[in-house]
């Protein structure tokens, strides 16, 4: 189990590095890779690991970006926790999984915009914010088809390319 937790943190670290490099930005937006990996860990591992991974990924995202320190940490922690709580509803159901990932990604972006604005970042002044948030949600959903099976395989020993396949932690529920 300890090895799986280290792998989860490693997955988050890789996601942060990729997110902050010259990641492809089709149509001027990019999928939120760190949030997606945190959602994957929430869906495939126990909630504690998801929350810790979300926080670590968020803090790294903050440290390597130019937003307020702690903002992404808060948002991705909440999203990872949400994913771990949603896991029972999504289990074995591809449609629910898709809806859940999309909703969690959008919620995370909206939460980030609202809290950031409360802390004086002026995100809501961006008139194209709604379009950007939706586009990021759609791109994240597309990328989820590749990323979630990888996360499943890496952190939970799941099958390659199995988006809704069972992980070893399922039994605890």
């Amino acid at each position: 189990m300890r090895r799986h937790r280290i792998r989860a943190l490693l997955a988050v670290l890789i996601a942060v590095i990729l997110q902050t490099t010259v990641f492809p930005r089709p149509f001027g937006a990019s999928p939120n890779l760190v949030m997606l990996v945190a959602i994957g860990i929430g869906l495939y591992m126990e909630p504690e690991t998801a929350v810790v991974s979300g926080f670590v990924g968020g803090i790294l995202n903050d440290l390597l970006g130019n937003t307020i320190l702690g903002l992404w940490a808060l948002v991705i922690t909440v999203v990872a926790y949400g994913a771990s709580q949603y896991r029972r509803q999504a289990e074995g159901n591809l449609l629910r999984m898709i809806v859940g990932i999309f909703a969690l990604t959008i919620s995370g972006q909206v939460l980030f915009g609202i809290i950031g604005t409360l802390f004086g970042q002026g995100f809501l002044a961006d008139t194209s914010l709604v379009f950007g948030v939706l586009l990021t949600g759609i791109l994240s959903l597309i990328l989820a088809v590749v990323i979630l099976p990888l996360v499943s395989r890496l952190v939970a020993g799941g099958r390659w390319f199995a988006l809704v396949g069972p992980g070893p932690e399922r039994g605890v529920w």
Partner: protein
Amino acid sequence: MLNARRRFDRSTALLITFVIISIILMTIDVRSSSEGIAGSVRSGTQAIVAPIQSAANAIVRPIAGFVDGVANLAGLRAENADLRAELDEANRRLAETEPLRSENEELRNLLNLGSLDTLQSQIGRVQARGSSDFDHSIVVNKGAADGVVVDYPVRNLDGLVGRVVSVTESSARVMLLTNPNHAVEVLVVGSEDRGSAKGRGASDLQFISATAEQEIAEGATLVTDAGRYPAGLLVGYASETAQRQAGFAVQTPIAPAVDFTTLDFVEILFFVPVDPAVQLAPAEGTS
């Protein structure tokens, strides 16, 4: 059931703890204006991760180029034709303005002012972007070791990109013009109208002027005014015509001259605004 309950409680307790820690960190960071401990930790992390990001870039950049190419395939032919036409027009204008350019250079020399062309600078390459679409900043691979300091302006071939906000030994973070926390003093070319251009994220910049006397026509060119930036750097073009109404400031969106989604090479200008009037660093050659 009991096991599941205990796990739920532990994860909820962890969530609450991390949320509280995050809020404390945000408060400290905002109160210290991203300096102090938060700034030091950020610079330290950036310095550690910079080599990994460079290596990752070597892998990701060709893939990013391919994806962008595929996404823009349909428009490439038309864009090529447009660019050729624009190039012809630009060459014609360049020939027409050459005498004015010489005259400007001569006047600058007489007034003991430097020129943008002779300003010392460093060419850097984008090594990392902001951590999300909300983060309007980039990291370039030139830092304190190359003579870069905070507040230096950054441009590319198209125009003003932003300014340096933090520096490590080998890299510098640049706040882009589009950042909602960024504003630049601008001048409308062909008039004496001045104002500021404020970033609004992915949207166009917003030009605001309380003193503009004339209408700002759609397509009007806006350049930096003397002050924090050297005068004359291209910022963008008015997207809409704005008329002055009594008692109200003139406002209009500005389409930035720079495409911030495809930034690659940038030039960091060694410009130090010693005086509110235009002051340029001594020219010692461009590296």
